[in-house]
């Protein structure tokens, strides 16, 4: 090698290295082009398939709360155990661990079989630690009712694990409460570890009710006391805010605990809205209100009550006590059948009587959100006859639900507006954004302020000096009307003296009502007059609940 040649040698080597490197990069570039450009779609599909995983996105059912925010229904997470039959290696060991003979469920054609659902957390942890082949776990939601049987007829019932509403508001609001379901896609790495969590699986909407748990508990306690004292076949109490139509409490007896796995379904019926009955004398105020509104009578108008026996057409009517001439106020206060029948059948007449029944909302649903609501029974004009003219003013030949009765009495209490009772106050999504807020809904204005004031004075007189004295509360003016309805004997299809419905419907404080309520007790044992059985219950509820009304 000469000295002239030596400077060329590194240059040549460098050229070779650079050439080789250039070729390598060229090859790499060609490969990259093949992957990134010409084969892009195919490789992208492979990548997506490898990096995709699925998660169960079943969101929990929404909460139900009362107006104070107290929880009425909540879905809590529970662990459930399932089998993948083809993956089970040691059936006997699995049976022993689970405490269930799984051998019968190992059909290899099945990919999935539930074994135990809703097991306690400690049992789930114990089973997980055993790492049994073919045994899997899934988080589900079980519906719980922390208040137990309190307001159970309103709240209703959802099937714990399947998460669908069966009864009450759980059924009526099912579409709102139910969580979003389905599978969500996640990005995973080669070891199937999640690199993202899908935006989904949201819980259902939360629903706030108008029920006030403090008042609800008072009503339930007082109803329990009445049931213990009189042993009725059923009893119902409804409390509404007459200013808005908001339902504050609904209690039924018999009742049930929605947390119990097995209950008598006959106890589940929300009688307050689904079971119409003849209202008896509690219907008299509506007849009188109609006559007052039409200026046909005044509270001082005197009506001859025929000394307790009145023949009208082919019908003979009786009063419990013989009265001569009574004022309209006294007819209501003393609950004269003959006086009420005369105002209804003679003063108003059948057509106007029916018009006022319709105006007060009888014969139509109140539209409260509770399911299976009955419209009650109001005879059509074609069915209406001269007997009906005298029966309806006494609360016979007409049937009403307790909710209808309270809604109608609320119209007298609030100055003449028939309001639609409502129990759903607010709905908000799982993130707290408001979806719905209830507003009082006026169905129609039916009475003038003057008529309402006159009716208020008449109904206060019922409690002061009339049949409802045992509803009186010290320091509070209570207005209302008693009812003692004879029941029809199914065997003879005639009214019997053996079975009665005792009731009281009223409001308080009379001068500025914030509570309108009814208590209805079916077939009380011993005493049976509404003034003796239902009125004291109303008085106690008013006394205890009034301080808690907002």
């Amino acid at each position: 090698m000469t000295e002239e040649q030596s400077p060329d040698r590194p240059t040549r080597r460098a050229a070779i290295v650079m050439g080789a490197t250039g070729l390598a990069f060229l090859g790499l570039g060609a490969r990259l082009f093949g992957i990134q450009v010409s084969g892009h779609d195919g490789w992208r599909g492979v990548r997506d398939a490898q990096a995709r995983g699925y998660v169960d996105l079943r969101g929990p059912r929404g909460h139900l709360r009362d107006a104070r925010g107290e929880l009425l229904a909540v879905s809590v997470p529970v662990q459930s155990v399932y089998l993948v039959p083809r993956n089970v290696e040691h059936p006997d060991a699995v049976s022993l661990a689970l405490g269930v003979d799984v051998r019968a469920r190992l059909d290899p054609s099945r990919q999935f079989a539930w074994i135990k659902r809703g097991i306690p957390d400690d049992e789930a942890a114990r089973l997980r630690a055993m790492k049994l082949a073919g045994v899997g776990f899934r988080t589900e939601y079980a519906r719980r009712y922390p208040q137990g049987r309190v307001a159970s007829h309103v709240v209703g019932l959802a099937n714990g694990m399947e998460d669908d509403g069966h009864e009450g508001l759980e059924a009526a609001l099912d579409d709102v409460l139910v969580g979003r379901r389905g599978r969500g896609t996640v990005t995973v790495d080669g070891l199937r570890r999640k690199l993202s969590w899908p935006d989904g699986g949201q819980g259902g909407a939360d629903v706030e009710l108008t029920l006030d748990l403090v008042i609800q508990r008072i009503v339930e306690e007082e109803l329990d006391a009445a049931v213990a004292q009189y042993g009725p076949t059923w009893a119902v109490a409804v409390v509404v805010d007459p200013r808005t139509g908001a339902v504050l409490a609904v209690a039924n007896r018999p009742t049930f605990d929605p947390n119990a796995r097995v209950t008598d379904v006959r106890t589940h019926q929300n009688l307050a809205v689904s079971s119409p009955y003849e209202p008896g004398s509690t219907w008299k105020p509506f007849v009188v209100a109609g006559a007052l509104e039409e200026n046909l009578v005044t509270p001082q108008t005197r009506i001859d009550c025929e000394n307790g026996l009145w023949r009208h057409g082919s019908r003979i009517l009786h009063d419990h006590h013989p009265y001569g001439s009574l004022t309209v106020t006294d007819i209501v206060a003393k609950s004269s059948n003959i006086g009420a029948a005369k105002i209804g059948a003679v003063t108003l007449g059948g057509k106007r009587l029916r018009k006022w029944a319709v105006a007060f909302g009888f014969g139509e649903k109140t539209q409260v959100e509770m399911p299976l609501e009955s419209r009650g029974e109001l005879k059509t004009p074609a069915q209406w006859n001269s007997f009906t003219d005298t029966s309806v003013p006494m609360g016979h030949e007409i049937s009403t639900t307790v909710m209808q009765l309270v809604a109608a009495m609320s119209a007298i209490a609030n100055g003449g507006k028939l309001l639609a009772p409502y129990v759903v106050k607010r709905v908000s999504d799982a993130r707290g954004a408001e979806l719905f807020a209830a507003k009082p809904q006026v169905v129609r204005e039916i009475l003038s302020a003057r008529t309402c004031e006159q009716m208020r004075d008449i109904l206060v007189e019922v409690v002061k000096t009339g049949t409802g004295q045992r509803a009186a509360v010290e320091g509070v003016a209570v207005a209302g009307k008693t009812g003692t309805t004879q029941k029809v004997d199914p065997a003879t299809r005639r009214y019997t003296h053996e079975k009665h419905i005792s009731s009281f419907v009223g409001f308080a404080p009379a001068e500025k009502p914030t509570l309108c309520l009814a208590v209805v007790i079916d077939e009380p044992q011993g005493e049976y007059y509404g003034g003796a059985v239902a009125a004291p219950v109303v008085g106690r509820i008013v006394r205890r609940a009034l301080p808690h009304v907002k």
Partner: protein
Amino acid sequence: MKAVRGLLVVVLLLELALIVVFLEARQTRLRYALAKKQESVRAITLENRTLLHDVARARRPEELAKRASEFGLTLKEERK
């Protein structure tokens, strides 16, 4: 000199590639951490539901009366 300059360019490209790889790795680490946090949030949300239920049960008047009696206290009977 040309060869040195070429090598310098290669080194720079490699450094850039390393930076890109480092950033990608960092992003991936953050995604793992985020996924873990999201799962934790989900677990806490679920636990919160159970606690809400337990609190609601514990706040019931009969439960409070029971606890009070355990401490030797008696509640005033409102009904009487």
